[in-house]
């Protein structure tokens, strides 16, 4: 039997509110507060020790694995009408965040039917081309730094800035999208950075 993670979190909220509302002036209802603290500690430990996500109680599995002998990572490239491929700046996926989008690609993209995959690719291509035009005009949409500019919170993982507004942006409109899977061994690539195998696994061309 699996318990929906929402239920223990609901218990946390209910017990917390009970403890908070039972306070009289400057005096806590110690019994209810104790129940809330114990429940919270057990829930936190339960999520962590069993390594199950009960968000916002998390297992925090950070870099908790071994690097396989061969690693494979996806790379999307945009294609223009002349068939030239272009690297895509991570901000050009906005408002999608690159890491989340790649997470979705790894989990769901190839579970879609060919038709659905093409529809998703068409949507992504629309995003990319729209952003390319704005960047080329020197007016990129500031999805992630609209309010705080350079003081915006960085993403968990870093990404290189490949495009410069109005200066370094692919000039030709994007009409297609290619998805490659790149495979390499970390040791071999350390010796020779070019030691990477690239395989085209999906291609979309706008009708």
């Amino acid at each position, binding site marked *: 039997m699996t318990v929906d993670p929402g239920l223990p979190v609901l218990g946390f909220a209910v017990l917390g509110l009970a403890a908070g509302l039972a306070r009289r002036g400057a005096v806590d209802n110690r019994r209810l507060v104790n129940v809330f603290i114990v429940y919270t500690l057990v829930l936190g430990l339960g999520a962590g020790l069993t390594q199950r996500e009960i968000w916002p*109680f998390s297992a925090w599995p950070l870099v908790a694995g071994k690097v396989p002998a061969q690693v494979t*990572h996806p790379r999307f490239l945009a294609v223009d009408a002349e068939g030239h491929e272009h690297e895509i700046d991570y901000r050009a996926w906005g408002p999608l965040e690159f890491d989340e989008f790649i*997470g979705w690609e790894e989990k769901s993209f190839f579970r879609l039917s060919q038709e659905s995959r093409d529809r998703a690719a068409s949507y992504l291509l629309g995003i990319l081309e729209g952003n390319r035009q704005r960047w080329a005009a020197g007016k990129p949409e500031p999805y992630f730094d609209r309010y705080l500019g350079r003081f915006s919170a960085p993403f968990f993982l870093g990404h290189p800035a490949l495009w410069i507004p109005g200066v370094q942006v692919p000039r030709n409109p994007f009409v297609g999208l290619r998805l490659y899977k790149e495979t390499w061994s970390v040791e071999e690539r350390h010796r020779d950075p070019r030691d990477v195998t690239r395989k085209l696994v999906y291609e979309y061309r706008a009708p």
Partner: protein
Amino acid sequence: MKAFIGRVGQFWDQVFFAPAPALNLAAARVLFSVHALWVLLSRDLPATSSLPPEFWMDVSQTELFRFLIFPGHPQLEYGFQYLAILTLVGAAIGVMPRLCCLLSALLLYHLAPLETIFWTASPYQRGFTVDVLALFTLSLSPCGDALRIGRTSPKEPSSVYCWPLRLAQVYLVHTYFFSGYSKLYRVGLSWLAPENLRSWFLLFSQQDQVMRQGAFFNTVGPWVADHWLLCLIAGAYGVVVNLLFVSTLFSSRARWFFVPDAAFFHVLVFLALSIFWLNTPQLLVFVNWQWLVDRLHKNARVS
């Protein structure tokens, strides 16, 4: 047995119900609300709502219902975001602080998963996890007794200011303790092997799509990877020091070592793996602000 239970009770009271100053709890309120505001203003979470159906294929109805997410209503989500901004500002400056903390926690519980829901229902390293828990817990407490417009701080320390702050610290301790534990649980002791750490350093330096720009970012990682002893130390840090971080809950001496050490660790990880740990500013929750203020006043009087 009775003596043992008595000692456990004493320890419990010492950890959760020791007299504490109102200022430290209020500082936690400011810290977590400003932190959440910082991350919220640096993302475009509501935009997820407008993703086409293909992105929602693997999202279960249970997950959507749990966070009250109904795809296809970005304007409504932007409304919630603006409301969250208002309540977080209210919590930070102390306008109806308990209510603002509660509303902020509830709104962030709904908004935060939007960042990742289309592939995972657990946005655990995106910045809001500790904030949601801490803001909710603070809303249950007199977190507005200090650092609040139009109110003077109570002079007397009280146990009501202790347990909410300690729980907020517990939430942050989770991030370190379970980060260390998960490596042992999922891989075992071999995670600490220098060869494993070397592979991680090399991998992060080879993924050109996941790399920050700047001279240091692409040199520190491979350099560490080429030094067996540094990889060994990095492995020990990744597990042992993370596990020992739990001691900050019980010992002020431990805090003096492990809190600055954690900040130093994040700088190294930032340079070597390009990973920015969004929770880093939350380490300030371990600072004894009242002690700091008293010391500054004393120094001012002396001079």
